[in-house]
């Protein structure tokens, strides 16, 4: 029988937190922001097929940073939850807030009960076609969740990017301006550099569309042409 040396709970949580932070800091960042017609999620992603940004439900999108296998697992769990909800009740009863709560619960449990915490952060965004509202929820590796207003950055350099967004952000940007600004900001961390258009992944929730499903993944061409 083996004995575990005593570790103070504060130390235990701090170690886990540091571990998760380090893992997340290794990856590139994601920016989510509201523009005139909806919500934009923009990620720097070297892969064209392993997505960081994707659709969850009619008006709900998802973005993840950190370890792919871990946020992919949560992405799928979220889609399953949303589809089950929508089938059992009604499509309009599926809300981003419930999804954010579910993610928060799951991550909190994983953080305290599993061997290692998940090295991820998530964004859940929602547009409301009727009253032009948007909500963005930012969920951290330990399950803490915050309701963001209009813009948010997550990933390794979230703080610098969020500060920069605070200075630059203006409500009512068109999509091209939103993309340009987000890309300019991403290109300032960790140091000033060039971000090639083919390494950008963008998805929007378009509240002006007549389709039931408002999520659309922007093509490489659309992204590069808005960069001008």
């Amino acid at each position, binding site marked *: 029988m083996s004995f575990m040396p005593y570790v103070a709970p504060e130390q235990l949580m701090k170690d886990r937190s540091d571990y998760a932070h380090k893992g997340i800091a290794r990856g590139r960042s994601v920016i989510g922001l509201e523009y005139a017609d909806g919500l934009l999620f923009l990620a720097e992603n070297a892969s064209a*097929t392993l*997505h960081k940004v*994707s*659709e*969850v439900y009619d008006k709900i999108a998802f973005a993840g940073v950190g370890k792919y296998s871990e946020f992919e*697992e*949560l992405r*799928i*769990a*979220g*889609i*399953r*939850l949303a*589809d*089950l909800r*929508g*089938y*059992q*009740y009604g499509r309009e*009863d599926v*809300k981003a807030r*419930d*999804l954010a*709560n*579910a*993610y928060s*619960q*799951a991550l909190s449990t994983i953080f305290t009960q599993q061997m290692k915490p998940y090295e991820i952060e998530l964004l859940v965004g929602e547009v409301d076609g009727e009253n032009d509202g948007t909500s963005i929820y930012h969920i951290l590796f330990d399950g803490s969740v915050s309701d963001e207003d209009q813009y948010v950055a997550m990933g390794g350099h979230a703080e610098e990017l969020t500060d920069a967004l605070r200075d630059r952000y203006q409500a009512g940007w068109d999509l091209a301006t939103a993309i340009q600004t987000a890309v300019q900001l991403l290109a300032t961390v960790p140091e000033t550099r060039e971000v090639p258009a083919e390494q950008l992944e963008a998805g929007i929730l378009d509240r002006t569309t007549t389709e039931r*499903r408002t999520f659309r993944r922007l093509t490489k061409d659309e992204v590069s042409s808005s960069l001008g």
Partner: protein
Amino acid sequence: MSDPLPLHLGASPFGASPSFVELLRIERPDALPAGTVDPPPFPVPHGTTVLGLKFTDGIVMAGDRRATTGNIIADAKMRKVFAADRLSAIAIAGAAGQAVELVKLFQLELEHYEKITGDRLSLEGKANRLAQMIRGNFPLAMQGLVVVPLFGGYDERREQGRIFYYDATGGRWEEDDYQTIGSGGQPAKNSLKKRWKPGLSRDEALRVAAEALIDAADDDSATGGPDASRGLWPVMVVVTADGASDVPEADVTAAAEAVLAERGAAS
């Protein structure tokens, strides 16, 4: 919406299945249509005539609006033709409640697959999945709750429209030109036999479809004909490379009125 939401993580070492029906069977079996031992002790509404046909750019699916319970018209405005996803459509005949539920499940099945995997199923894949779902309904079919759909869509790989039909046991066949199902299926098919030809334009295809449904309504009491006084016109869905969409009512009305006018002139 306030109960704690369980997120089911790590169902299998190889990830979640992209099938919504499978998910439902595991998580909420009570929400699936369940088989009982005996047939329902009361008559249930049945949807009647639907058809699908090919034209140059894709396919048209059309259906009348009537649902009957025995000799009673249970619903005069029933919709039996639906877009299944962006590039396919499904039309149903048979026990109406079961059939509409099957359509809803099938639409979700396709959407769920697309969201989980990030890819759309091939048309072949969709047609096969539908066959399996009908097979799943077989216990209910044995009690008289038969559901037989017609499925069609635009095949992106072959760059053409394709039509499939099914029997209650889940048998799947591909149709070359056109197919009809439901109580008025036979007169509708006879009509298509005379009127359909290869290389129809969209407008010609709408007219041929309208004519077949009118012929079905002539011979089959369970099929509802167009009714201008109540604004009842067939529902039609067109699927081409550009997507699946409802045919605007003005176009359906024009097609049906052209057929009726021609007949009025001839008599």
